[in-house]
């Protein structure tokens, strides 16, 4: 008879507790999104094909050894965060003409005749050793991409009043109409042509 006295537990707030927990986990758990630095590998050339000749001044050489030390242009040691500015300076130099004989009228560099002729001709080459750590290697790659993005951002802002990233987002935006997307794709292409990303990679040294 004593049993009858047990009061019923109030379960009305149970749902609230459950939802609270649910929301807590929703907020604290992050879905890992796959992201990375995209790159296009060069096609295999037939062995008979002669490699294109590139003038010394149009080549920006970044060497990376297995200790993670960085040598730029064969004579300067640099830290990772200094590479970007050096690369921008090289790419934006515009000291000469491109292959059609046009001057770089949008370059804001020093027009130094001993540095790159034109952004369309400027090549950045990365040399490494087999034992170089991948982390160091990718940090350098990231800085070089950053240099290109900085220049592209500048031109996108000057021409269209928005950053290069926003332009690309608009070109991919599935909410807007196809013609609008096409127009943005055209703009992205134009900016990419102004500063084409020409990265070359040497076979890692043993």
């Amino acid at each position, binding site marked *: *008879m004593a*049993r*009858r006295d*047990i009061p*019923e*537990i109030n*379960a009305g707030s*149970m*749902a609230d507790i*459950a*939802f609270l*927990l*649910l929301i807590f*986990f*929703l907020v604290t*758990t992050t*879905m*890992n*999104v*796959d*992201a*990375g*630095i*995209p*790159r*296009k*590998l*060069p*096609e*295999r050339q037939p062995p008979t094909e002669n490699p294109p000749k590139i003038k010394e001044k149009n080549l920006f050489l970044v060497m*990376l050894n297995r200790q993670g030390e960085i040598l730029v242009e064969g004579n300067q040691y640099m830290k990772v965060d200094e590479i970007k500015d050096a690369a921008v300076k090289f790419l934006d130099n515009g000291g000469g003409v491109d292959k059609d004989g046009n001057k770089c009228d949008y370059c804001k560099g020093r027009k130094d005749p001993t540095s790159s002729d034109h952004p369309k001709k400027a090549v950045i080459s990365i040399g*490494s*050793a*087999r*034992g*170089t*750590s*991948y*982390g160091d*290697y*990718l*940090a350098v*790659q*990231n800085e070089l*991409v*950053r240099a290109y*993005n900085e220049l592209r951002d500048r031109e996108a802002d000057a021409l269209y009043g928005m950053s290069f990233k926003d332009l690309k987002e608009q070109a991919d935006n599935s909410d807007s109409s196809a013609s609008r997307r096409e127009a943005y794709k055209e703009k992205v292409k134009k900016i990419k042509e102004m500063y084409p990303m020409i990265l070359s990679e040497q*076979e*890692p040294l043993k």
Partner: protein
Amino acid sequence: MSKFNKKKTDMPAVNTASLPDIVFMLLFFFMVTTTMREVELKIKEPKLPEATEVKKLKEKNLVSFIYVGKSKKGVKGDRIQLNDKISTVNDIKNFILAKRESVAPSDKNRLTTSIKADIGSEVGTIYDIKEKLRDINALKINYSAREVQRK
């Protein structure tokens, strides 16, 4: 008879009204925390490098993943994992060709290879992988990295 009836009404019923809530909570919890990785890692989980200039990978079904990292058993050197077994660089060719076969012909040139390599891997290993990819004309790659914001 009356005695029998009394016994039954004396039992306090367990309140099951909140049971659905609990079940739903568990369900959501597992839905949220489960990572959508189809393969089980046979190598040590690669510690991805950090980068600021990353692009998010879309269309996961068009991406093949190559994992590079250290062995779990302490074997020296970098290990490569394709699908769910440890492989060598020579297996990459068949791995990519099989992936190519599995997608629609119109998507074939949109296939991407994502290299998920540990921060401590050697550039030589990555280079060997890239050479194999070039051999079979799988040119779109993505160096997987964790996105960080620039300070």
